[in-house]
C-alpha cells in the first residue's frame, strides 16, 4: 500500500511518522510539501503531529486553510484513508473533515505522558488489527487535546460507533468529553486522534502497542 505524509512548516513529528510507516509497511511514504497540490496515487494520507504555523491563532487553524487541504478533501471523498495524529487531528477538525474542536487541555498545561487507550470500535479501517475493547498503552504530547463538540454531534458520534479510541482507566489527560481520544468521519475513512501511536511501535520504545493502527491502515479491510 502506498502512503503519503503531508508536511506543513512547524510540524515536528513528521520524521517519527515517516519512520513508523517505513518500518511497518517496508515502503518509504511519499513526502508531500504543503504547497504541492498533487499527492499522487496513494491509499493512505497521514498528517503528522507538531505545531503547524506555531499553532498560532488556533491549533491547526492556519494549516487547515492551505490549498493542499482541498486535495486531501477530494481524496477523502474518493475513499482514500486519511489519518491525522495530534496536530493532524486538530488540522482535520479545523478543515471540517472531522466534527468538533480540540480546546486547551483542562489543566491548561502541555501534557506528555503515557496513557491507556480503549479500542472503542475495532471494526474500522484503522483498528481491525485490534480486538474490540483492547486497552493499549500510548504516549500523548499536546497542549490542545481537549475534544469538544455540541451534544447532538457527540450523540451522533456515539450512536454511529464513530469513536475509535477512548482514554481508559481514568487516564484522560486533557478533559475530553466522554474520554474521546480519536474519532472517525461518517464514511469511516478519516481518523483523527491525539495520542502518538508512532512513538510506540518497536521493542526499543518499550512496546509496540501502536503498531496495530498502522498495520490496520496499511492493509485492505478483509
Amino acid at each position, binding site marked *: 500500500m502506498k502512503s503519503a505524509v503531508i508536511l506543513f512548516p512547524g510540524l*515536528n513529528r513528521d520524521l517519527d511518522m515517516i519512520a513508523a510507516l517505513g518500518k511497518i509497511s517496508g515502503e518509504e511514504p511519499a513526502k508531500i510539501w504543503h504547497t504541492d497540490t498533487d499527492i499522487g496515487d496513494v491509499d493512505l494520507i497521514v498528517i503528522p503531529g507538531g505545531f503547524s504555523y506555531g499553532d498560532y491563532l488556533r491549533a491547526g487553524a492556519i494549516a487547515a486553510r492551505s490549498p493542499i487541504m482541498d486535495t486531501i478533501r477530494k481524496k477523502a471523498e474518493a475513499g482514500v484513508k486519511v489519518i491525522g495524529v495530534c496536530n493532524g487531528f486538530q488540522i482535520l477538525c479545523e478543515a471540517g473533515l472531522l466534527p468538533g474542536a480540540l480546546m486547551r487541555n483542562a489543566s491548561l498545561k*502541555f501534557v506528555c505522558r503515557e496513557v491507556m487507550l480503549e479500542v472503542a470500535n475495532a471494526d474500522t479501517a484503522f483498528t481491525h488489527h485490534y480486538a474490540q475493547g483492547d486497552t493499549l498503552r500510548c504516549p500523548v504530547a499536546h*497542549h490542545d487535546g481537549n475534544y469538544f463538540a455540541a451534544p447532538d454531534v457527540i450523540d451522533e458520534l456515539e450512536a454511529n460507533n464513530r469513536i475509535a479510541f477512548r482514554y481508559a482507566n481514568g487516564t484522560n489527560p486533557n478533559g475530553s468529553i466522554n474520554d474521546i481520544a480519536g474519532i472517525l468521519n461518517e464514511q469511516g475513512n478519516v481518523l483523527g486522534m491525539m495520542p*502518538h501511536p508512532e*512513538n510506540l511501535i518497536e521493542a526499543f*520504545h518499550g512496546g509496540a502497542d501502536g503498531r496495530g493502527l498502522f498495520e490496520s491502515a496499511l492493509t485492505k479491510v478483509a
Partner: protein
Amino acid sequence: MTNSIQITDELIAEHGLKPDEYQRILDLIGREPTITELGIFSAMWNEHCSYKSSKIWLKTLPTTGDCVILGPGENAGVVDIGDGQAVIFKMESHNHPSYIEPYQGAATGVGGILRDVFTMGARPIAAMNALRFGAPEHAKTKHLVSGVVAGVGGYGNSFGVPTVGGEVEFHERYNGNILVNAFAAGLADTDKIFLSEAKGVGLPVVYLGAKTGRDGVGGATMASAEFGDDIDEKRPTVQVGDPFTEKCLLEACLELMKTGAVIAIQDMGAAGLTCSAVEMGASGNLGVELNLNKVPVREERMTPYEMMLSESQERMLMVLDPSKEEVASKIFEKWGLDFAIVGVTTDDLRFRIMFDGEEVANLPIKELGDEAPEYDRPWTEPPKPAPIPEVKLPEGQAVADLIVKLVGSSNGSSRRWVYEQYDTYIQGNSAQRPGGDAGVVRVPDRDGNDTKKALAFSSDVNPVYCEADPYEGGKQAVAEVWRNLSAVGAEPLASTDNLNFGNPERPEIMAQFVHAIKGIGEACRALNFPIVSGNVSLYNETNGVGILPTPTMAGVGILPNVDQMATIAFKNDNDAVLLVGGHGSHMGQTQALRELTGGDFGPPPSVDLALEKKNGDFVRDIIRKGLVTACHDISSGGLGVAVAEMAIKGNIGASITLPGDAATALFSEDQARYVITCTREQRDAVLDTAEKAGIEIEAIGKTGGNNLEAGGTISLETLREAYEGWFPEFMG
C-alpha cells in the same frame, strides 16, 4: 564622523562602562565614540560577552582530549562519537530575563541554546534545563516556577527536541535571582561542521531569519547588571520567542548548509548583530562593513544604535558563497524567512557601520574583542563552613519516617509535574526519559538509520555544598555528572559548564568562583572529562544578597549498545541489593541534616576522584556485562533516598539490613557510591568481579514485597504519595 549625541558620564555609566574602561576606549580609537560605537563597546565589553572577570580562570580548565574535535571558542563544543559523527553541545544561562518575565525569559533561553547548536550544522537531539528557584513559601516562587516551566516547554516542545533531563531546586538564596540554565545537544557529521570564522574578502554578509525589532535593546547590559529596586525600569527589554520561526530557521539552515553556500555562520545571541558580526570578522582576520538600511526591521524609525544592540530572536548572520545566492535565497523564501545581504567582508580589519549613507561607526574589529578589559579580581580564602549543631539522629521507625520526609520534601520529591510539561518522546529515540540518573537517546547513523549507539546526558550541581566549600563543591558537581552517566552504563565523554555566581567585584564571591573552578578543573582532569563549552553568569545578586554559588555541570556519555543500559527501577522480586563504595559517615550539608535542623551546616562530603573513577568504571563494566538489573548513584538524601526511589520506580519493595547506626548509614552523603541490584544467580559473580577489582562492595538486602524495610517499615504507597505528592500540591 559627526556626534549627534554628547557622550556624558551618565551615558557612560548607563552603558555599564567604568570610567577606566571608557578611558580604554578613548585610547583605543583616539576620539570620542559615537553613541552607536558606545553601544557596541558596551555590548562587547560587558561581562556577558567579554568574560572579563572570568577569562583568566576559564583558561585553567581542561578543554582537550582524544574525543574533543572542538573545544571552547565556537558556539558550542564538538565531540567525536565515532562512525564519522559528532555530538555538539553547550549550556547557557538566561537568569535575569527569566526573573523579569519567566515565560519569555525561559523560552528565549531555550531558543538561544538551540541556535548555538544548529548554527554549527547539528540537528538538536536532546535538551536539558537546570532550574533554581527561591524558597517554596516565597511570594514569587510559584509564579516563577509555572512561568519558567511553561516557557521551557512552550519553546522546546514546539521546536521539536526531546527534553531528557534537568534539575529543579529550591533555596531561599534564590529568592531574588532565579537560575535558568538551558542545555542543548545536536548531532552532526564530523566532516560537515560549520564555524563562525569568516573567510575571503569582498564576500556578501547575509542576514537570515526573523526581522529586527527593539527587543532586548540593552539586554546584554542588563544580563550583567546587579538588580536594584529600579528593576522595573529594566523591564522594556523583554524579548519574545517565536519557536515556529526557530523551527523554520533550523530546517532552512540545514538545507542551506547542504548546498555549500555557507562559508561561515553565526547565530545572533546577546547583543545580536554586533557580537555576531564582530566574532565572524575578528576570528577570520577580516573587516566587516554593514549597511543598516538593508537590515529587515519590523518597527519604524529604528536607529543604528537600536539595530546594533537589538536582541530580537531567531536570527543568524552568514558569509555567503556569492555563486550560490540564488539557491540560498530560494530556501529562505520557501521557509518564509528573511534573507538580506546586509554587508561585505573587507581586508582592513575595521568594523564599519553605514546608515543613510553616513558612517555611524568605524572601529578596529579585532581590538573590540581582544582589547576588552580583563580583570584578575581580588579574592579571599572562602569562609569556613558553620559547624554542625548537636542533633539527635532518629532511631527505629523514626529513621524510616525520615526517608518519607526526604522523598516528600521540596528538593527530594519527584519532578514529574515539571517534566510532564516537556515532550520527552519526540524523535522516537528516547531510551531513558527524565526521572532516572541520566537521559538517554538512541543515535541514528549518518544516513538516518537506527543503530544501537546511544548518548547519555546529565546535569548536576549541589549549591549548598559549593557554598560550604566551593572547591569540594566544584569537584562534586563534576563527579556527580560523571557518576550519573556511568550509572546508566555510559562512558562519560566530555562536559559543559554554566557558572552562576554573585557579584565578582566582591572578593568573597570571587573566592567562590576561583575555588569552584579549581575544583571543577581538577575533577575534569582526574576523570578525563574535558570541558568543551560553557557559559558564565555573574552578578546574580539583589540588594547585596548573592545566590548560592552554582557552577552547573552537564555532561555527555556514550553507550555502544543501548540494550546494555541500566535504569534505577527495581526489576524483580528477590534480586540482591548491593552497595558499591561502602557505608557512609558524612552528615555535613546533607538533606537529612537540613530536614532536622532547618539549616545548612558543616563541610560537604569530600570527593576522592580516584575512588570515583574506580567505582564508576566497575559499575559501568558490570552493567555492560549484563550482570546488573538496576543501578542508581547515591547523592542528595543518601542511601535511604536512593533505595526508596528504586523501589518507587519499580513498584517493588525491598528489605535492607543496616549497621548499628542506621540513620547515618541511610542519610550520609559520602561520594563515589552506587546501589545496584542483580539476580540471585549472578550475585556471587558480581561480588567476585568486585573483589578482583578491589572494589568495596556489600550485599545489604533483597528486593520484593510492598514495603521498604530500612530502619523501620514504609509501604510503597506511603513512599509514592510523599514522592509524587509534593510538587502538584505545592503548585496547586
